[in-house]
């Protein structure tokens, strides 16, 4: 089953640079469909990046984040081959999680 999260994590000189693309409509609740009905708000609220049981980055997102949201962040303390867990939960309570290895 394809994950909704695509990740690329690369370590360079002690700093891990992580880029992620998440498949999600990020509907703001302000847009109407072609029939004139409001498309209800449906967006990721929290996304976390976890390394060795520690959250190295937490994003609180609102509907102003673009569809299929992108994130880039950088942190120290990890090395090549380490595993990262990226998880998100949205305003409907849906969630997904994936792991990636630092290259």
């Amino acid at each position, binding site marked *: 089953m394809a994950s909704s999260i695509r990740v690329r994590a690369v370590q360079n000189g002690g700093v891990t640079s992580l880029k992620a693309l998440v498949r999600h409509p990020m509907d703001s609740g302000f847009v109407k469909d072609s029939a004139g009905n409001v498309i209800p708000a449906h967006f990721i609220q929290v996304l976390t990046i976890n390394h060795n049981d520690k959250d190295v*980055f937490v994003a609180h997102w609102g509907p102003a984040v673009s569809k299929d949201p*992108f994130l880039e962040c950088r942190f120290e303390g990890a090395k090549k081959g380490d595993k990262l867990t990226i998880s998100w*939960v949205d305003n409907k309570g849906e969630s997904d999680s994936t792991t990636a290895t630092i290259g």
Partner: protein
Amino acid sequence: MIDERRRGFLKGVLGVGVAGFALGSGIVPFRVEAATAPNAADWPKKAFRTPGVDETISELYGMDAEESDKISVDLPTIAQNGAVVPVTVETTLPNVTRIALLVAENPNALAASFKIPEGTLPFVSNRLKMAETTDVVAVVISDGKAYKATKNVKVTVGGCGG
């Protein structure tokens, strides 16, 4: 061939919540034990529903932010499309614990708020939605105090709709 039933099933997987296991991107199979969805309890509900930059900063951090030239906001001059505007913020301020991105002309100014734990660089890149020409304000909490920097981006309707 993905037919409607399979599509529905895929959607269902996303809706499974805590029990939703997802294998890694295929590079290294890794069984996620007790995959917990992140805790949404401290998602700043009120801050995300506040119009206006100053009001939002106040709601989010309980203080005013002072201008700082040590925060860099990387934004295009003219957004090629308001639905997807790349924004990158970084700062040389010390001991940063939080970064927030605000879009002044959006109905609710707060676009995103980030926690920067120790060991994480004060850097973030996102893609944001903007409906019109606007100031984008980056707010940084450094040593417990709030600082901000502003950059303007032109957002308008192109001639090539369709």
